[in-house]
C-alpha cells in the first residue's frame, strides 16, 4: 500500500464527506450497526485509494459497494430494497468483468502489482479489451450515461447521511480507479476508446441537467444534477490531457463536497415542508430565510458559479477537453445552461411563492455545522484551486497520447 498525491487529496475528501454524513445522521435506529457500516464504507474507500495491488483495490471497491447497499437496505426509506438491489446489480456486473480482467492479467503477467504492471505495459494493440473490462466496473460508479439508472432510485431511497456517500465515496473511488488503473496501465487502449467515451460523457453532461429539471422529487433532481456533473469528470478523464486530469481530480473533490451539501440542504427543506416533492412544498424563503439562503448557495455551488470550486474545476476540465475535442467541449459547455435551469426550477419551486406552511423552524445548529464548513471549503478551493492542482505534479498523472 502507498499513498500518492492524488490518492491523498481524494482520501481527505472522502474523510470530509464521511464526517458531514455522520454529522447529518439523526434519529437512526440501531446506531451501532449504522455507524459501523459508515466506518466500513470509509475504510473500504481508503483501502482502494491506498492500494498498490489490483486485488486489494478490488476488495476495497467491492466492500464499499456492499457497505453502501447495506446502509440503504437497512436505513433507507421508500423503495429501499429495490434501490439497494439496483446498486448491487449494476455494481456487481461491472465487478464481474473486473474479476475477469484481473484473472487474465494475473495469468499473463504473474503479478497484480500496479507499479510493476505500469513499468512493463501490455502491448498497445492488446490494451483495449482490459481497459474496457476495468472501465465497466467504474462507469456505473461514475453514474455515466447510460449506466446511471441506479442513481436516482438510490438517492430517492437514501437519507442524506447515506446518500452523501454516493458522490463522496463511490464516485471518488470510481474516478480514482479510472485514473490509476485504466489510464495508468492501459493508456493506448483508453486512447483508442476515447472518442465514443467522450461522446457518452458529453451527452451525459446535458442529459442529466435536462432530465433533472423535470423532476418533482428534490432528491432525484439532485441525483440527475450529479449525473451531469460526474459526466464532466468522465469527460476530463477520457480526454486525458495533463490539464484535464488535474481538472478531473478537482472536479471529484468539488462534486463530492457540493453534492453532499446539496443533499443535506434538500433534506433540511423536506424536514420543514414534510415532503421531498416540489409540488407539495414552496414558499420556504418567507418562513425560513436562513435555510433558504444556505440551500440557494449550495445549489449554486453545485452548478459551478464563480467563487465555487465547481467553477474552477469546470473551466479547467473544458479547457483540457478543448485541446483534443473542441466540439465536445463546446457542446458540454451547454451543460452550464441546462444546469442553471435545473437549479433555478428547484429553487423557484422550493423557496419562492406563498408558503404552504404557516411557520417553519429556521436552520438548527446541526444543519449549520454541516453546511457552513462545506460551503467555506468550496469557496476556499474556488478562490485558490492551486491548493489542490499544485499538489498533482505531472509525474503523478498518467501520460496519455492523443489519438490519431
Amino acid at each position, binding site marked *: 500500500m502507498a499513498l500518492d498525491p492524488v490518492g491523498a487529496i481524494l482520501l481527505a475528501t472522502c474523510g470530509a464527506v464521511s464526517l458531514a454524513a455522520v454529522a447529518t445522521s439523526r434519529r437512526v435506529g440501531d446506531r451501532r450497526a449504522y455507524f459501523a457500516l459508515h466506518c466500513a464504507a470509509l475504510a473500504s474507500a481508503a483501502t482502494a485509494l491506498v492500494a498498490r495491488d489490483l486485488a486489494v483495490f478490488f476488495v476495497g471497491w467491492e466492500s464499499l459497494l456492499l457497505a453502501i447497499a447495506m446502509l440503504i437496505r437497512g436505513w433507507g426509506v421508500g423503495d429501499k430494497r429495490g434501490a439497494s438491489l439496483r446498486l448491487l446489480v449494476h455494481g456487481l456486473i461491472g465487478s464481474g468483468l473486473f474479476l475477469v480482467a484481473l484473472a487474465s492479467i494475473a495469468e499473463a503477467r504473474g503479478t497484480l502489482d500496479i507499479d510493476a504492471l505500469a513499468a512493463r505495459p501490455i502491448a498497445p494493440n492488446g490494451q483495449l479489451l482490459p481497459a474496457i473490462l476495468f472501465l465497466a466496473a467504474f462507469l456505473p460508479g461514475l453514474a455515466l450515461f447510460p449506466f446511471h439508472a441506479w442513481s436516482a432510485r438510490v438517492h430517492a431511497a437514501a437519507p442524506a447521511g447515506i446518500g452523501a456517500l454516493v458522490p463522496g465515496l463511490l464516485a471518488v473511488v470510481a474516478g480514482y480507479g479510472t485514473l490509476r488503473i485504466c489510464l495508468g496501465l492501459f493508456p493506448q487502449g483508453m486512447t483508442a476508446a476515447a472518442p465514443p467515451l467522450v461522446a457518452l460523457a458529453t451527452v451525459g453532461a446535458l442529459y442529466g441537467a435536462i432530465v433533472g429539471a423535470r423532476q418533482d422529487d428534490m432528491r432525484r433532481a439532485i441525483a440527475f444534477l450529479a449525473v451531469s456533473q460526474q459526466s464532466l469528470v468522465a469527460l476530463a478523464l477520457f480526454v486525458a490531457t495533463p490539464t484535464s486530469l488535474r481538472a478531473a481530480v478537482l472536479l471529484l473533490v468539488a462534486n463530492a463536497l457540493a453534492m453532499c451539501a446539496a443533499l443535506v440542504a434538500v433534506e433540511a427543506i423536506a424536514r420543514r415542508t414534510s415532503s421531498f416533492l416540489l409540488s407539495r412544498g414552496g414558499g420556504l424563503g418567507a418562513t425560513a430565510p436562513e435555510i433558504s439562503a444556505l440551500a440557494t448557495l449550495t445549489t449554486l455551488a453545485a452548478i459551478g458559479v464563480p467563487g465555487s470550486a465547481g467553477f474552477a474545476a469546470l*473551466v479547467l476540465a473544458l*479547457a483540457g477537453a478543448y485541446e483534443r475535442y*473542441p466540439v465536445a*467541449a463546446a457542446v458540454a459547455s451547454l451543460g452550464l445552461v441546462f444546469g442553471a435551469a435545473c437549479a433555478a426550477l428547484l429553487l*423557484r419551486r422550493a423557496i*419562492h411563492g406563498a408558503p404552504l406552511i404557516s411557520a417553519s423552524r429556521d436552520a438548527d445548529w446541526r444543519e449549520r455545522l454541516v453546511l457552513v464548513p462545506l460551503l467555506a471549503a468550496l469557496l476556499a478551493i474556488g478562490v485558490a*484551486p*492551486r491548493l489542490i492542482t499544485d499538489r498533482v505534479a505531472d509525474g503523478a498523472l498518467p501520460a496519455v497520447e492523443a489519438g490519431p
Partner: protein
Amino acid sequence: MTLVLVVAVPLAAAFVILVAGGHLRRGAIGAIGAAAPAFAFGISAATLQAVATGTGAVLADLGPWLPLRGSGLVLRADAAAMPLALACTAIATLIAVVAFASVPRDGARRFYVALDVLVAATLVLLMAGDLLLLLAAWSAVGVCGAFLAGRAARSADAARDGMVSLVMARLGDASLLVASLGLLALFQTLDIEQIETRLATILLAPSAERALGVASIFIVAAAASRVGLAPFSAWLGDPARMPAPVGAALHALVLPTGIALVLRLAEIVRYDVLVLAVALGGASALLAAAASLGSSRVETWRTAAVLGGVVAALGAGPATLVLLIAAMFVRAVSLLARRRDVSGLSAAVVIAAAGVASMERPVIAAALGIAAALVVLGAVGTSRIALAPRVSSVMGGATRLDGLPPLVGRVWHTTTLLADRGGEAVIDRALRTVTALLETIGRAMGGLEAGPKWTHQTLLVAATAALVAYWIAR
C-alpha cells in the same frame, strides 16, 4: 494594493451583511451596503487620477489562479476602464441610497449583498488582466442580476424573473467560455494584453482567422444576450414591476456590462464581427423603440433602445464611452425617480433624480448629438490614414483623450492664422480645408463605395440620426 481595495471593500461589505445581517438593524445594513460602493467610487477616482498622471500603480497582481497559461488574479487599470468604473460605483451608490427607504425589510439584506457583489464583479470585469478572470467576473455579474431579479420570496413574478435571468446569464457564460477556450487554443495564453499584442504584430493564417472569427461571434453573442439585443430582448425583466432600486440596478448596472465586455475585448474581436454587432445594435434599437409604442413594458423597451443605440456606436472611440455612461446615468435616474413615497436622504436623491429625469429627452439628444459629432470628426480624421490590417481599437480611440483628429487640428490652425495674420494665404488654406471636408462628407454619404470602414461609419451615422429623430419626435 489600492486596486485590490476597489474590489475588496464591496466584497467585504457583502460578506458582513450576509453573515451578520440577521443581527443588524435595517439602517445599519443600508449604511454598510451604501458605504461600500461610495468608498469604491473614491478609490476609483484616485486610481483614474494616478492613471492619467502616470504616477500611481495601475496593476495589482495577486498571483496565479488556475494552472492555465496567462491565468492569474491580475487587475489592470487604464484610462478607458476607469471612467466606466467611476460611473458604475457612482450609480451603485445612488441606488443604494434610494434603497434605504424603498426596499422592504425582508429583502434589504439580499438586495445589498447582491448590489455590493455586483459592484465588485463589474469592477473586476473592467480591470481583469486575463480572459478567465474576466469570465468569472462576467458570470458573477449575471448571478447577481438573477439575485436582484428574484427580489421577493413571496412573489411569483420575482421567481420567474430570477429564473429566466439566471438561465440567460448562464447562456452568456457558456458563449464567453467557448470564446475564451478558442482564444486559449489559438494564442496559447489567456492574458488579454498578450493576445492584443500578438494580433497587432502578426498576420494570422486563414485557418486562424476563421477560428478568431468564431471566437469573436461567441463574444458578441454573450454580449448581445446580456444587453438584451434582438432576439434576446424577451428575457429583460420589466422594471415597472420591481422596486425602483432593483429595476435601476438591473437596467443601469447589469445590462450595460454586455457593452463593457465588447469594449474590453474590442482589440480582439474581429472587425467584420464588430460591424455585425453595430448593425445588430442599430436594428435592435429601432425595433425596441417601435415596440415601446403602445406596449405596457415601456421602461424595458426604452432600456433596450438606449443600449442598442450605444452598441450601434461601437467603433466611435470616445463617443461610445460618452454614450454608454450617459445611458447608464439616465436610465438609473429615470428608474429611481419612479419612487416618490420616500423621505430623508433617499427623498433628496429621488427628487434630484426626478429633476434630471425630466430632462432625459434633451440629455439623451445632447449625448447623441455629441456622439454624432465625434463620429463625423473621427471619420473625417481617419479618412487620410491608410487602413491597417487590423482596425484601430475602440478602446484605443478612447484612450487618446488628448489627441485630436487631423481635420480639427487643421481647422484650429487655420482659425489661429486668421486671427493672427489674416491674408490671402490664410483664406486660401481655409478654402482648401473646407473643400476637403466637403469631399470627405460626400465620400461618407457614398458609404459603400469606400469599402468596409465606410460601411461601418455610415451605419453608425444612420443609426445615430435615427435615434436622435426618434427621441425628438417622442
